[in-house]
């Protein structure tokens, strides 16, 4: 046992091994969280869509209790017996609550397993590759859509850092000094997926969808890049971890309520920051191909858009790629504008002085909560706004956003230069 401990200490003392092991651990955690959030965001999407349209949404898919009988249990109603065993009256509040939650019929999941079951269904469906497609690119395209969002998650910090006896662990897989640029560059790659899917399908609707996707994504990348420049001017760094750290110390970008955020300059800077936030969020919507900007798969005029010819798991990977892009986009907005992992009001420093591991855990949870909130916002907007017309989408980008972003940069520069 002692030998084992000593061996572990030895391995961890070696900086290379330490770096490798911690990175792998972080990778596993982030990858699991993103995939879980993809599933979760599908669920949120369908539930919230239901509520907005006065429906319950997917609320079943529980494990029915009659399965127990099928597997040989003699009990007719396990809940009734359980309540009797616990001494609850059969018409009491608890019993009624249980019945309302459908405990008497099933083990409820509130529809949470529905996306997983859908995934299973897509696995089992027939895989159709039409004879007229270009096979290599047809198979390559879904990978190119699913890959980039998962890769671009590498630079997003999900908590602060921890000092261990062996070295510092930064809770960000790759603490690059070019964080946002990395995300723009890599997520820009996903346009290849859409274009290739549209082109290799060798049929007209996917082709039109692919063309639209290309034009839209490239245009909105310009606007997106320009719209974050004011923010980078304020923070003076491109390192996402440092950006979040300075937000934790001196107030979130949109909520400067503590630290240095109480100065006049920061309050004035809220105006360009807010403009920048709206533009950036809109561009993220467009980049993630979500309604009101889902021109690439606009069902009303393009059948299914670029993935018309896809079926089974290939279609599912487009689907997952879209939701992964949505999760990463939300994470980026949260990181840049809503304080990332920071709990706010100076709570980060206080927690860190108490215990760094506790602080990291709390910050991780805070980050996930903020992420969920923004995903909800994504969904909420989707079920509110109708789809724009194609020329409106392009006009919004080139005639409004690009100009507005440049003006915003000038405004920020003026505020930073003249007001202290």
């Amino acid at each position, binding site marked *: 046992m002692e030998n084992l401990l000593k061996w572990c200490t030895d391995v961890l003392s070696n900086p290379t091994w330490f770096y490798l092991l911690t990175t792998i651990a972080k990778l596993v955690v982030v990858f699991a969280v993103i995939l879980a959030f993809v599933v979760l965001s599908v669920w949120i999407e369908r539930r*919230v869509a239901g509520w*907005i*349209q*006065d*429906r*319950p*949404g997917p609320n079943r898919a529980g494990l029915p209790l009659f399965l127990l009988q099928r597997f040989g249990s003699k009990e007719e109603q396990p809940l009734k017996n359980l309540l009797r065993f616990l001494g609850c009256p059969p018409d009491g509040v608890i019993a009624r609550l249980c019945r309302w939650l459908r405990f008497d019929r099933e083990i409820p999941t509130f529809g949470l397993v529905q996306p997983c079951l859908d995934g299973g269904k897509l696995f089992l469906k027939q895989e159709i590759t039409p004879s007229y497609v270009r096979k290599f690119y047809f198979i390559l395209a879904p990978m190119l859509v699913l890959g980039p969002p998962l890769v671009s998650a590498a630079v997003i910090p999900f908590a602060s850092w921890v000092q261990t006896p062996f070295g510092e662990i930064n809770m960000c897989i790759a603490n690059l000094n070019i964080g946002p640029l990395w995300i723009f560059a890599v997520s820009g790659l996903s346009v290849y997926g859409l274009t290739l899917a549209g082109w290799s399908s060798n049929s007209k609707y996917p082709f039109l969808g692919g063309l639209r996707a290309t034009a839209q994504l490239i245009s909105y990348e310009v606007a997106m890049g320009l719209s974050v420049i004011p923010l980078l001017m304020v923070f003076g760094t491109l390192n996402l971890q440092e950006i979040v750290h300075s937000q934790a110390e001196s107030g979130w970008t949109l909520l400067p309520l503590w630290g240095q955020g109480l100065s006049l300059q920061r309050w004035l800077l809220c105006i360009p920051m807010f403009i920048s936030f*709206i533009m950036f969020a809109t561009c993220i919507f467009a980049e993630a191909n979500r309604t009101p900007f889902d021109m690439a798969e606009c069902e009303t005029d393009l059948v299914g858009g670029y993935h018309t010819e896809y079926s089974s798991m290939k279609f599912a990977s487009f689907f997952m790629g879209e939701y992964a892009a949505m999760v990463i986009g939300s994470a980026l907005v949260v990181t840049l504008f809503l304080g990332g992992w920071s709990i706010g009001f100076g709570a980060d420093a206080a927690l860190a002085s108490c215990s760094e591991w506790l602080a990291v855990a709390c910050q991780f949870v805070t980050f996930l909560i903020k992420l969920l909130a923004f995903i909800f916002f994504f969904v*909420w907007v989707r079920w509110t*706004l109708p789809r724009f017309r194609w020329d409106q989408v392009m006009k919004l980008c080139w005639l409004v956003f690009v100009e507005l972003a440049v003006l915003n940069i000038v405004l920020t520069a003026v505020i930073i230069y003249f007001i202290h």
Partner: protein
Amino acid sequence: MAYIPVKRPKFSILDRIYVVELVRGLGITLKHLVLSLLGKSRSKKDFNGAGIGACMPFPEQRWDDHLPSYYRGAPALVRGEDGRERCVSCQLCEFICPARAIRVVPGSVAPGSSCSKQEKAPAEFEIDMLRCIYCGMCQEVCPEQAIFLSQQYLITPTDRKQAVRNKEQLYRLGGIRKGLIHKWNQFK
């Protein structure tokens, strides 16, 4: 073709900026979301809804009391007030049926029944519910007012044979219809 220009509404600058309308739209959807979560959606009562939203959670709550009177469900045969089989097996419904769901085998009237005036009665009357499209043409064409679309909407056979309804089942579903048809009245 006359050229009719469509009058587009004039949008104010506030409308064209779109942000205000966007926020209002978000407010409307949020209101719906909150109301349906609280279980206070509009027209919930009309739908016999329970729980979240205005929807009726189907197997637990049923349409039964909430079906409109004009609802057209499964077709059924009816008896008159006097208990007489109204169907005279003229086979008009069989001929009109666009889905060819109906099959009638004409037979003679049972001796001693109350309706000796009519010539025929169905020996067998079958409706294949897998074929029926609930169009109501049989009801419309029937000169004897013998076949009606009932309010039954839950039709879940487990095999094809079960889906075919015979005369007995159809009469059980239809029951007795009020109102005499005096054409076959003996005392007339």
